[in-house]
């Protein structure tokens, strides 16, 4: 996607999914029509993770990643999941496809390993 912000690539296969998830959060939120990014994890897991991240940040003073895009390294390749909210003047069909393409482009730019699946779910349209 041409209007996505230029991002620093991560080392392929470095085993550090956190920076990649942070990058993908930014890439997804930069897609026109995306107005929210929800945790791809089940709600309870997401809330617990947010509470833990906030507590760790308060205790250590070090910011902890609160990224929402889920990236899993599987044998068959990266499995990426993202759950978005779409703002109504935009068509959910177009926005969701653009989100997929923006993620693909970012992964290509990073030289990331093979992709097994990119799952984009529109969870809210407002």
């Amino acid at each position, binding site marked *: 996607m041409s209007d996505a912000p230029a991002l620093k690539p991560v080392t392929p296969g470095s085993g550090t999914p956190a920076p990649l998830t942070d990058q993908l959060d930014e890439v997804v939120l930069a897609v026109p029509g995306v107005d*929210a990014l*929800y*945790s791809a994890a089940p*709600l*309870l897991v*997401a*809330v617990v993770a*947010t*509470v833990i991240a906030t507590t760790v940040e308060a205790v250590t003073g070090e910011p902890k990643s609160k990224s929402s895009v889920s990236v899993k390294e599987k044998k068959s390749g990266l499995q990426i999941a993202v*759950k978005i*909210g*779409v703002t*109504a003047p935009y*068509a*959910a*069909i177009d926005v*969701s*496809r653009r989100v*997929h393409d923006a993620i*693909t482009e970012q992964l290509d730019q990073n030289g990331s390993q093979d*992709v*097994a*699946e*990119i*799952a*984009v*779910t*529109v*969870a*809210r*349209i*407002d």
Partner: protein
Amino acid sequence: MTSSDALAGHTFEELSDYLDRDRTPADPSIDGSPECQTALSGMQRLRRTHRDLLLKDVQLEAEREDSWVTSILQHISLEARAGRDIPISHPSPTARVSVTEGAVRGILRAAGDSVPNIIVGRCRLDGDVTAPGAPVTVRVDATVLQGEIIASLADQLRDALYAALRQHTELAVESVDITIRDLYQIPVPAGESEQ
């Protein structure tokens, strides 16, 4: 709403209270839930409509039956659940793109609420929405302000629903069935009916 009907762990009353408190203090379990957000949007629109109707009632100094509002509010919460994943096509073999049934019901309700003097109650998608191309029937219950021409309002509502479905989904919609379940009546003030 029973505890088993709770939306992302929250009851209808809790969501309503959250709106009353102007969403403060922020609750991440509500703010982070697209289902809760869809329900809150629907509840807010209904509150606005209800407020407008109340204003008309106050102007007429009349009393009015409110149970339909409670019923619709409960439907809003129940239908905001994520439900089934409705596929959106993409040429890439690694793509799995979808929109949730809850999000679609939310936009159907929003589209319906954009038509004046009609309030959408229950929304249902009948058919296998998870199978691309499978025929789907959309069933909507609505409440109409008494005195309006029902057939004309139903046509407007149907057009708005089709437009929303075309914009946001690839569902093969076979029909949109609308049932007017209630008439919202603004009572005539005493004395006026005798003229």
